[in-house]
């Protein structure tokens, strides 16, 4: 799969997530630029944390029955909490600022610590909703739906337009309050508007992308743009462009390397800052040459991503019709059991009357799918445990697999699979890292190997079990597609 061009296609299942990330990358730096210039950078750190406390708080209220269950879903509830807490927090910080007691940094640091503590405490009070809250706070922008994308587009679009229309007022009030007063009278309205926009972006962004990514988008592009420009208009433009670059490269790297988006984006943003300070010390020509070189490297890397891996070969092609299909090894430390279909058995399992052994696992389902596909490729499939019941799952490590196969007196070829990561936290996608190998036992030659490392979209799944089943189908199809 050519990830670079695939993610740009509107039909790509994670396309809404890419667009959402780009929108945040474009708009957040505009707000963040003013936070940086006004030296209120810690506000950008504290407000997302306060928003996160709001998310945690509303889930706790819902669990205690104070808030009703909303049909619109968990994100809507989180969004309400996020908005209310963000604006309350801003109001309180503004009030304390007016009173002028103590250090501004001290107030922000205390608010940050308090909000962080509240987030955890509300989660502890609400053990049943802990996973949902954690997922929301991690901000899996990858799970952004088309409906949420519309909301994000409207709100962030309005913020963008407001920043554009009132750019002169925001600059004047931020840079020289005395001149702003002389030219436009009492200008507290512009301060309030700027902080309202910041609150809106943060409250919505935290629920869509998590506090870390929002803080990253707010301040990192602005910090990276600062050493490169000497004009305000160029500064705002470059901060937004760097935000877009950070969003796109982060998304691309996240898809290609199967990394979590938030930390990947933030790490890239920090890299941009170092790069910007390096570039600011270069002369014009050296800077242009460096950028051209970086662009070429990226283009080559993106084109290189287009090299497709070969599918599982036919039996005739490798002259090994007899194939041992080993049990799939689970190295995730999670049971990876699929939900039971029989409610009575589930009740019995919960009551401790029966074990969970009867339930199918991801490993079972993957092996069944592999067996069907390999048989269609002309292989005569044998199962090692049919020969000797002591055979357990094989590791995908060649030497280990060979040792176990040879000890068990197997001959011919063996197909081994090992699940290293299988995270189905949302029914919308499964993060998978699975190794597959086809090994000839006699000479130890690896005839075919593939590592699947990606977030597999499962848009039609209605529960986590269905998501795993759909992801297995997608992965196996990918392995055998010519």
């Amino acid at each position, binding site marked *: 799969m050519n990830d670079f061009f695939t993610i740009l296609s509107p039909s790509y299942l994670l396309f809404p997530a890419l667009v959402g990330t780009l929108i945040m990358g474009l708009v957040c730096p505009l707000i963040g630029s003013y936070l*940086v*210039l006004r*030296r209120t950078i810690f506000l950008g750190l504290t407000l997302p944390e306060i928003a996160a406390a709001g998310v945690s708080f509303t889930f706790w209220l819902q669990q205690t029955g104070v808030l009703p269950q909303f049909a619109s879903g968990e994100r809507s509830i989180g969004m309400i909490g996020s908005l209310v807490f963000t604006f309350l927090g801003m109001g309180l910080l503004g009030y304390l600022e007016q009173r002028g007691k103590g250090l501004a940094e001290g107030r922000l640091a205390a608010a940050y610590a308090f909000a962080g503590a509240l987030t955890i405490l509300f989660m502890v009070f609400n053990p049943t909703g802990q996973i949902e809250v954690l997922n929301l706070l991690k901000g899996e922008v990858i799970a952004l739906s088309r409906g949420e994308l519309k909301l994000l587009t409207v709100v962030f679009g309005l913020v963008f337009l407001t920043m554009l*229309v*009132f750019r*002169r*007022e925001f*600059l*004047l009030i*931020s*840079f*020289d309050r*005395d*001149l702003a*007063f*002389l*030219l*436009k*009278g009492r200008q507290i309205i512009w301060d309030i508007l700027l902080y309202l926009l910041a609150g809106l972006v943060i409250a919505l962004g935290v629920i869509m992308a998590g506090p870390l990514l929002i803080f990253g988008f707010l301040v990192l592009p602005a910090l990276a743009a*600062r050493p490169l*420009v*000497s*004009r*305000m*208009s*160029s*500064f705002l433009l470059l901060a937004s462009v760097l935000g877009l670059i950070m969003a796109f490269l982060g998304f691309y790297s996240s898809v290609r390397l199967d990394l979590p988006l938030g930390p990947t984006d933030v790490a890239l943003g920090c890299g941009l800052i170092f790069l910007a300070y390096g570039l600011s010390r270069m002369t014009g020509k050296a800077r242009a040459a460096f950028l051209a070189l970086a662009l070429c490297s990226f283009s080559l890397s993106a084109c290189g991503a287009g090299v497709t891996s070969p599918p599982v070969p036919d039996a005739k092609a490798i002259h090994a019709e007899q194939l041992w299909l080993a049990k799939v090894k689970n190295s995730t430390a999670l049971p990876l059991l699929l939900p039971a279909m029989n409610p009575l058995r589930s009740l019995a399992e919960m009551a401790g009357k029966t074990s969970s052994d009867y339930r199918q696992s991801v490993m079972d389902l993957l092996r069944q799918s592999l067996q069907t596909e390999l048989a269609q490729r002309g292989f005569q499939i044998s199962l090692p445990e049919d020969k000797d019941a002591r055979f357990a799952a094989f590791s995908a490590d060649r030497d280990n697999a060979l040792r176990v196969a040879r000890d068990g007196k197997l001959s011919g070829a063996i197909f081994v699979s090992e699940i290293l990561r299988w995270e189905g936290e949302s029914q919308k996608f499964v993060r998978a890292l699975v190794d597959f190998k086809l090994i000839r036992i006699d000479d130890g030659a690896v005839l075919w190997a593939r590592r699947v490392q990606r977030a597999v979209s499962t848009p039609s799944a209605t529960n986590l079990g269905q998501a795993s089943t759909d992801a297995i189908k997608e992965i196996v199809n990918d392995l055998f597609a010519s």
Partner: protein
Amino acid sequence: MKTQANSEELLPAGGDAAGVSPLVALEDISLGYDSAPVLIHVNLAIYPGKLVGLAGPNGSGKTTLFRTLLGLLSPLGGTLARNCPLGNFGYVPQSAALDPQFPLSVREIVEMGAYGRVKSFRMFPTAESRRAVQVLEQVGMAHVKAKSFFALSGGQKQRVLIARALMVDPKIMILDEPLSGVDEESRRSITELLVRLTREQGLAVFFSSHDLEMVQRVADKIVRVDKGKVWVEEGNGCS
């Protein structure tokens, strides 16, 4: 000549000898912060075409007086009358008071002076851009219009801030320590510029400095402040 500040010489209530009304008139005003007066019984009037210097040691209340004139501080008592809107006040702050964190070119700084006239949703008018270049030429700084403001020397910054104040189309200019942190050559050129603005454009110019000798040499009138008291002296500029 030393006179108490309520001297009629400086403060004819209805106008000066030529019948010209003052642009700003302070009558028996007390100034300060949080009802703690810094200056009391201040009487002062500023007329068009006059170069008035405000001299006094650091912390004597010069900036407090300016902030009151500009409406940034409310007087604690007395009457403050302005015969032109605040939009016609050209204010030149100390360049050190501006935050160097902002990436602003000289041209952007000067264009700020026109922000009061330009509607929010409009592009910056070409005529205003041309005017910005004109005022930069007037202060001899047109050649640095594309440069970063904070990369300029102290004297250059002051001239650019004067250009910004001129961009407002002022009737009165108030300059807070325009010569502080500036080399001798720049001091000379800035004082020449202030004299020119007063004589040729008929602006009222009110500037502060703790360099009494320079103020005496340049100003038409000198307002002295020290230890809460205000008095007026003649300067050599009127001769």
